[in-house]
């Protein structure tokens, strides 16, 4: 059952444009980093908790922002018709800047 699902998914996914695949690769990287941090926290313990939260939330944060970017540049998404891809990208940079500044401050 799982094999069927994976095969159907990869068949369909091959059709996405390369630019979107790059964004998706970045998303996978973000999730993987978050998973590694979480696993490390389970092994080693939560002290200092603020450092763990800073790192983990930074991964989750830019994962989420990249997903938003992906949604906004997708031309088939009618919700975002008023927003040009350049504007979406500029917002993305701004939000990432804010997020990482705060994360840097919180790491301690």
């Amino acid at each position: 059952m799982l094999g069927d699902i994976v095969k159907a998914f990869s068949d369909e996914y091959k059709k996405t444009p390369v630019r979107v695949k790059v964004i998706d690769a970045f998303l996978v990287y973000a999730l993987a980093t978050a998973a590694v941090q979480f696993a490390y926290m389970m092994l080693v313990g939560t002290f200092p908790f603020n450092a763990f939260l800073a790192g983990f939330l930074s991964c989750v944060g830019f994962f989420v922002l990249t997903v938003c970017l992906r949604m906004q540049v997708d031309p088939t998404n009618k919700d975002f018709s008023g927003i040009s891809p350049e504007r979406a990208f500029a917002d993305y940079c701004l939000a990432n800047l804010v997020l990482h500044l705060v994360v840097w401050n919180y790491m301690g």
Partner: protein
Amino acid sequence: MSSPEPYVSSASMVETAWRYLNRTKSQELLIRSTCLIFIYLLAFSVRLFSVLRYESVIHEFDPYFNYRSTIALVQDGWYEFWNWFDSESWHPLGRVVGGTVYPGLMFTAAILYRISNFLTACIKLRDICVFTAPFFSGNTAMIAYLFGKELKDPETGLVAAALMAIVPGYISRSVAGSFDNEAVAIFALVTTFYLWVRAVNQGTVASAVLAAFAYLYMAASWGAYVFISNLIPLYVIVMFVSGRYHRKIYVAYTTFWAVGSILAMQVRFIGFNHVVSNELFAFNGVFVALQAWEGLVFLRTKLGSRQFGQLVYLVAVGAASTGAAAVAFLTLSGKLNPWTGRFWTLLDPTYAKKFIPIVASVSEHQPTTWASYMFDLHMLVFAGPAGLYYCFKKPTDGTIFLITFALTAIYFSGIMVRLMLVAAPAFVLLSAISISSTLQAATKELRTAPTGDSAASAAADASAAPKKRAISKRGPEEAPLTSKRGPNIAVLLMVGFAMTSYAGHCIWVTSEAYSSPSIVLISGWGPHRHVLDDFREAYYWLRHNTAPQSKVMSWWDYGYQITAMGNRTVIVDNNTWNNTHIATVGRAMASNETEAFKIMRQLDVDYALVIFGGMSGYSSDDINKFLWMVRIGGGVFPVVKESDYLANGDYTVSSKGTPTMLNCLMYKLCYYDFGQIMTEQGKGTGYDRVRNYEIGNKDVKLDHLYEAFTSEHWIVRIYRVKDLENRF
């Protein structure tokens, strides 16, 4: 009139201005800006009653701590303030102020102070603190204008600004001198909601980041930030359930979550609570749920229907089991913080009275009465539900948010009087929608030529009908009431009358009820006017006549004022973070003098301070609060039993009072030397003017304390604790 030439015009300045002003758009802009300027000035000025009547002084109790913290921030700098450990309160425990305070208010006042100094307007810090609240209430009115504009149109915004400027529910906590968290927090609340609705409407990441910054300001200013962080996820759920979910909400919410969470965690007082506390469970939970939803939607576009069905089944089973296991593990291992008592009170109003006497004893935590709604909102009580009707009739993203906000705010305001403050902006916005829609519908026909005579009978019918019924008879909003001018003018007049009476009521309420500084009392009128400045007299006596390291024991209400004005260490203060310490003080006040002396020696107490109203008629004195001391003390030390102080179930200090009551320390400190005083003509000596009878024990002797200071009207009485006696 000169000919219209593009660039070079031979028209004079006056003619150009006249031509400019004759254009409708410019007229509209001029009217709007003038209205907003006047609204701002009105919001600022209406809050100045106490400054005009008394002086520019900080009111009540909590603001004195905020004032003292702002002084520390301005003098010692940001780093010292952020790490401040205050050893002048909660002796001998001290208080970690840096980690237990919401710094938004102090930070705002300090910035205003620095800006005004930089602009060479050297305003004293105390005046900056006193006028912070009116300044920010003007700003709140402006944000209400923007919010109304975002929800519907600029006309709604204007009405919202006008209503917000003088709504008594908001004025109650933002008069000049009320330097408390709510002064800036309500501004932050309305701004966060406005920016959130704007983010949902626009769907850009930048607007959501701006909303997150407003959320940071709210989280830094007031503990009610949990209201925002529960309302916004609730709104997302409501949008889901009503089938109006779209991708813009996803962008807005997830960006708000990601940036807002980590920003709010910068406040030391909040810290890790933002991810581990149960209070913010919805905030984080909805985030996770949204990711899951969008993930499933993404997968559905990629998979065939059969595979998708199988996947959903697998995911549902897997997620449910791991989710349940994780929650169970975290709760049992204690990693998730429990709900606080204050939170339980919001769901079950009787919780505090049964379990936490110190929360129940605060007057602001009492349930709200119907009279309070009318008093604090006046006309908005009627216009609010009408606004709900309009929101339901034409739902947009913004109005659905307003509906959720209003319904939750109304529910919570029914539980605690203090939360009327949160319901006031909700009512203002709802009323703005209904009033603006009514006015627009009524004036639509008036702007065009009148189509028929206003038949006297029709006009009389319409005017006779009450306003609400007239509104409900209308069809869609664009269609006017009738095509006759009479009813439309009647509606306009009625709305005008309602608004005028609202304004009159608000100003009267502000003047009568919400402008007393509590620290200065006035009695009498005209030539018999008498100012009672006992509090400041006593605190400054303490400041100038006691050793700098003296410790003062009083009930927790006065702690902040004593540290701020008297500059002495106190045992307990209004922060009430340590119930056992307060119970110790309560036990000392309720025990007889020898027992109390032992407790006072343990706590290093040098001075005991009580507030006594029997001579002056001041009714919020310690004898009236005494039963709360007994209850709180009895909650921790079972030796203090409330029944010992009640004679036949009655609380009395007259000759019918119990011996325990008539010999306890509080009684002795209040009524020392009072038994020989004649307070009212025709009554005996020792007549208590608050309780309205003569006291029981008129011959009070103190063994271990002696009277150090009594203020002019006997309101504040300070006693020095004697040292141990010599051995021989």
